[in-house]
């Protein structure tokens, strides 16, 4: 399955090369504007040189700098056995050659990140806030995401890309400043132009160089961010594939994003390494964000209906973003021969479920008194709609599925005059359940479904669902 990541990597590679071309071009044009004869080549070489030196520093010392600056300390198994076990599990699932070191950051804000330019020398760090708030399945989803970053060599990749972006910004900045404030470029240029007699050409070159210096950082940043977002989706897909339980990561993201009120103290350059963007309270999607919007990520994970493989993630991605969008690539999907089934959640504490149920019943009663329309969504949410609501459809706040309202209303009216014998389904709600309607159609019930009845999509008959 991991060979298959290559197609995605090739696309990211193309983006990196594009950024490299931009860097060389920038150096070339700036060099040309200084000296039209030989300046171009020197400029290009200087630009690449700056990038290489910065890359070397970032790749050899970057891990330790990041871990130290975020105040992380390494732990052993006895310090946090569950976290350690989960990292071990994900290491096995991903087939990493060596288990990454486990670090804990003393911070009440839940977040996690991974470092390591090689899978052999990687580390996973989580905050104490994350450990406190997430249950086992959710923690597994988050660790799976980080291990996914390590397995897909994202850390090395994003380091190279961010250094490239940094070099482009640095070079442009120096050039623009020297033109506007220094005047040194101008004086050396005028002395030379007398010899060559190409004053006009050089003036044009200077304007081109200035334009480049202003536009290149913007283009490079857009490329970089597109890359970063793509990598986040891929890590999400990897997490679902590794844990075989997309809901774990989905509900973890929900919890984390809900609590991102105070931002972590993180420098901008480190942001792509975190599981949720630490710099934004509520992530607003734009071309200028390192992470895809958390709500969309949750929606995609929750829409993975049939299985936990890459194929299912791709389908869910298309469902959320529109039919023609792709994020993983056809090659991956072909190579995934076997279907990866979603596993059952690890049993939760019983009392909590009862409390949720009680709250739901009270809510239902209130809703009925106020004449609210209740639409049970397939993801488990019951959407309550006030009678004044008059739009044609409503989007489920949790999974993003659209429910046409006119039909729902029609259906509630139909309930008053039942046709045929009522089918009653009784069963425990621990996994997916299948019911056969009297018309012969099979209906699947999600383990998260919590309504009292479902309606057959073929004959429209209501089936009562009674949970034990």
């Amino acid at each position: 399955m991991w060979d298959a990541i290559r197609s995605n990597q090739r696309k990211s590679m193309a983006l990196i090369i594009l950024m490299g071309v931009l860097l060389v071009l920038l150096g070339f044009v700036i060099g040309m504007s200084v000296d039209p004869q030989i300046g171009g080549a020197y400029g290009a070489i200087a630009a690449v040189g700056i990038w290489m030196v910065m890359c070397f520093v970032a790749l050899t010392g970057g891990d330790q700098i990041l871990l130290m600056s975020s105040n992380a300390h390494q732990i052993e198994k006895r310090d946090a056995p569950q976290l350690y076990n989960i990292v071990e599990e994900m290491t096995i699932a991903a087939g990493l050659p060596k288990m990454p070191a486990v670090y804990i950051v003393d911070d009440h804000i839940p977040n996690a990140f991974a470092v390591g330019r090689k899978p052999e020398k990687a580390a996973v760090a989580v905050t104490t806030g994350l450990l406190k708030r997430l249950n086992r399945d959710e923690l597994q989803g988050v660790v799976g995401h980080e291990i996914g970053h390590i397995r897909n060599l994202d850390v090395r990749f994003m380091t190279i890309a961010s250094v490239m972006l940094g070099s482009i910004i640095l070079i442009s900045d120096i050039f623009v400043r020297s033109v506007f404030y220094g005047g040194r470029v101008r004086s050396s240029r005028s002395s030379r132009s007398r010899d060559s007699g190409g004053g006009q050409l050089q003036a044009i070159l200077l304007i081109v160089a200035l334009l480049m210096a202003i536009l290149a950082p913007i283009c490079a940043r857009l490329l970089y961010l597109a890359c970063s977002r793509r990598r986040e989706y891929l890590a999400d897909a990897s997490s679902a594939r590794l844990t075989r339980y997309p809901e774990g990561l989905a509900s973890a993201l929900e919890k984390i994003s809900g609590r991102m009120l105070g931002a972590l103290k993180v420098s901008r350059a480190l942001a792509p390494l975190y599981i949720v963007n630490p710099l934004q309270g509520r992530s607003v999607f734009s071309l200028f964000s390192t992470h895809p919007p958390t709500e969309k990520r949750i929606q995609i994970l929750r829409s993975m209906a049939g299985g936990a493989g890459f194929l299912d993630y791709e389908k869910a991605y298309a469902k959320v973003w529109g039919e023609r969008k792709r994020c993983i690539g056809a090659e991956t999907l072909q190579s995934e021969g076997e279907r990866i089934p979603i596993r059952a959640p690890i049993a939760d504490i019983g009392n909590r479920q009862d409390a949720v149920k009680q709250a739901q019943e009270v809510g239902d009663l209130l809703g009925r008194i106020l004449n609210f329309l209740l639409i049970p969504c397939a993801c488990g949410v019951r959407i309550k709609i006030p009678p004044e609501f008059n739009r044609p459809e409503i989007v489920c706040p949790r999974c993003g599925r659209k429910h046409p309202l006119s039909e729902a209303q029609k259906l509630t009216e139909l309930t008053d005059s039942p046709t045929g014998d009522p089918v009653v389904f009784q069963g425990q709600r621990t996994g997916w359940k299948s019911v056969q309607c009297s018309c012969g159609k099979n209906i699947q019930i999600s383990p998260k479904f919590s309504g009292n009845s479902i309606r057959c999509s073929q004959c429209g008959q209501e089936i009562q669902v009674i949970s034990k």
Partner: protein
Amino acid sequence: MTASVSAIGALWGIGVILVVLIVAFIIIYNGLVRLRVEVKNAWAQIDVQLKRRHDLIPNLVETVKGYAAHERGTLEEVIRARSQAVAATGVPERMKAEQQLSGALGRLMLLVEQYPDLKANQNFLALQEELTSTENKIGFARQFYNDTVMRYNTKIQTIPTNFVAAIGGFSQEAFFEVEEAAERQAPQVKF
């Protein structure tokens, strides 16, 4: 003169082709060996985790006994299943014994639900976490093993690797199948 030149040219041509073929053979052969080692390693990982589970069980049984000594039947069943699993040899027999052990452990864990004191015991909680994690690791190791075997088997069957595999005596590896039907069937949902 021209004839001898062309003969030398042909010889050169054949020589170059031979060298290319040999180099290609070596690369493909080494790739196959690496994959076979990966399959072995993946299997070894499953083995390690199964052994870990065997090691955890005596401790678990002792702890449960302290609170629920009269649940003799289930406890003995677990102990019996464990000793069978430890003694089993050969892959199919071992798989069967391990499956039985999983079943017995599952029943024990269901039973534990009725003892709130036991569920609050720190020692038991730690053991339960270890057991859950080990079960997970067995599952993930199996998944990884099957992934690796699939890659290996596909390689062996496709051109041009299949020629090298036939010469080098590489044979297909078996998947590690699970007998739980529930885990195999993915629910089909249509909205």
